[in-house]
């Protein structure tokens, strides 16, 4: 047995054991229960980013503006986000508590979590909810709340009515703590720190780009979803602009000011992993549930929204899929970089509209280079191959269970 097989076998065992941990099992069950709301949330984002917002894909390429007032669209999406996350935290608290204390009433825990989540989201700016969907913080919050409740029950020594004064007092303390912590959770300092790092010219060098390609999926894996498009366009604004100006005036990419940047490598060629898994679900899985998930995820995955797969398959916090999630963007970004470096394709200099599917990004950014399209297709195949062994293991253990 090769080291790779041994490693995979060990990982599989660990993955199975991990999935049976009370918190992890509760997370996966909760996501399955809120699947419909997740679908609505993901599709609301997709519809807004494709059709409704001023710089959405279709309004941009067709040059139209719907008579919608942008803040209305943003607020509707924001409300759906908040509903989804509140449902998640409330149900997760119930599932987790019932795994820890099977015969106990979870009403108070659910109510406490519901109000704590709502309090945490109240009056916050759009950045935190829409840009960063932070399920990680919610999971930590549920973990802390449930365990504090269990500890409190132990301290009380005698069983209490869930809505007794003693228990209501505990709930009030938790909600107060959530209110006090709110400014720290939504601190603009996070945005400022991200901006500071992104403005660094370090992201015009391949080692930093590959680290970026590792960190972003790692954050997704633990439940912090950040849309890469906005980060990349922020980090590479100068590079994109100066490269384009250079190209338009000199009509060549030789001696272009920023031959390598996040936009023309990471943004063009990475994160096709979600799409790869979606294709595997559609064409390789015989499980009807998986195929249904693949069908629902196909459209969002094409437009770089992998949240359905992340939460419903699930990939989130799952050791088995950490490796392909990290390896796929790094390998595809590196291959894309090599393709540019070795002049297999011209340097992508044109900016593509927001939410352009990954499949045709490089093709459009090179203004119609068919080899760039072929490279993108090839990279999806590479990504499928990276995911395949892990997907097979997951299918096998699914059958066994």
């Amino acid at each position, binding site marked *: 047995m090769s080291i790779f097989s041994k490693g995979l076998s060990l990982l599989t065992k660990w993955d199975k054991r991990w999935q049976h941990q009370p918190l992890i099992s509760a997370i996966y069950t909760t996501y399955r229960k809120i699947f419909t709301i997740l679908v609505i949330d993901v599709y609301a984002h997709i519809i807004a980013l494709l059709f409704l917002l001023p710089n959405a894909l279709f309004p941009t390429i067709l040059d139209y503006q719907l008579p919608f007032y942008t803040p209305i669209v943003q607020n509707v999406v924001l409300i759906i986000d908040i509903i989804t996350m509140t449902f998640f935290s409330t149900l997760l608290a119930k599932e987790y508590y019932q795994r820890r204390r099977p015969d106990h009433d979870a009403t108070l825990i659910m109510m406490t979590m519901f109000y704590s989540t709502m309090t945490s989201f109240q009056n916050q700016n759009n*950045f935190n909810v829409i840009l960063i969907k932070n399920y990680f913080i919610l999971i930590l919050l549920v973990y802390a709340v449930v365990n504090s409740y269990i500890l409190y029950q132990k301290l009380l020594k005698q069983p209490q009515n869930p809505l007794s004064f003693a228990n209501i007092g505990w709930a009030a303390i938790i909600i107060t703590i959530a209110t006090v912590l709110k400014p720290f959770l939504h601190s*603009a300092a996070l945005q400022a720190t991200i901006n500071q790092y992104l403005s660094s010219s370090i992201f015009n060098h391949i080692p930093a780009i590959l680290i970026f390609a590792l960190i972003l999926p790692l954050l997704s894996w633990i439940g912090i979803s950040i849309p890469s498009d906005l980060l990349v366009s922020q980090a590479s*604004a100068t590079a994109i602009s*100066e490269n384009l100006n250079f190209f*338009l005036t000199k009509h060549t990419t030789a001696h272009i000011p920023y031959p390598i940047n996040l936009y023309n490598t990471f943004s063009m060629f990475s994160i096709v992993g979600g799409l790869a898994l979606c294709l595997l679900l559609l064409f390789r899985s015989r499980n009807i549930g998986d195929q249904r998930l693949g069908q629902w995820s196909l459209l969002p995955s094409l437009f770089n929204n992998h949240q359905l797969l992340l939460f419903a398959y699930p990939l989130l916090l799952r050791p088995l899929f950490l490796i392909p999630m990290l390896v796929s963007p790094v390998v595809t970004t590196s291959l894309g970089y090599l393709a540019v470096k070795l002049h297999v394709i011209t340097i992508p200099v044109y*900016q593509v*509209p927001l939410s352009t599917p990954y499949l045709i990004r490089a093709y459009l950014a090179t*203004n119609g280079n068919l080899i760039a399209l072929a490279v993108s297709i090839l990279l999806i195949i590479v990504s499928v191959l990276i995911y395949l062994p892990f997907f097979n293991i997951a299918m096998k253990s699914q059958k066994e269970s």
Partner: protein
Amino acid sequence: MVIIGILGRSWVDETRLNQSKIQNSRLYPVIFIPGSSATVNRFDDLFNKLNANPNQKHSVLKINIKKDGQYDISGTIRQTDFRPFIVIGFENNADGYSNIKKQASYIDDVLTLLQNRYHFHHFDAIGHSNGGLIWTRYLEKYFNNQQFVMNHLMTLGTPYNFSETSISRKTEMLKDMIQGRTQLPSNLIVYSIAGTEDYTDDGIVPVQSVTAGKYIFQNYTQKYMQITLSGNEAQHSNLPDNNEVVSIINQYILTDNSNPRNPTNAPK
């Protein structure tokens, strides 16, 4: 996917030549011109007040135009700052209509240079005293709406009729500006702020001279708003750092993102 590919390709092709500007227009600077006798540091106190909010730090770039038209640049525009402040000052900062004419032509050159370097399409303008006159002259004589979009112009204690206290005595400059008002961009929003130390002037500029701006802008721009400030801080030289002015700039200029491609208007 094929449809998006075809439409997307067509869009990239169509916007190929304009894409630079589309890119660049993410940057939406506020450009300041100080009055006569003042240097590029004239607005430093104002910037300190505007930058007091740690979440809204604006980077500052200063351009000092020398007597021969050459220039010195100091400061930088932070890469992630889409609302930087740019100050354009003059070594020859003497008063007088002939100098204002010359300075306006320099502004045209410097803006083109700034656009080539920093790639922006939209900007807002603020002028203190004669700085407002330079902006007005520039708008009437040099402004090209294919090249730029100026969304807001704010003038602080600008003497549109120099030191004349009566509109019945129009200076040559005011006459020229009234004549040239048809060239003003119709989408421009103008705020003219007057200070009144007493009932007649801000210590230097007569209120009537500031309010004469209405004969230039009213009905020729999208909006013209006259604001009069009073009190100790309303003295002509204090106007740029007057707390009311800081609030007005925050309210009318910095929180109004009329640039459609400004990231604060982008989808979240």
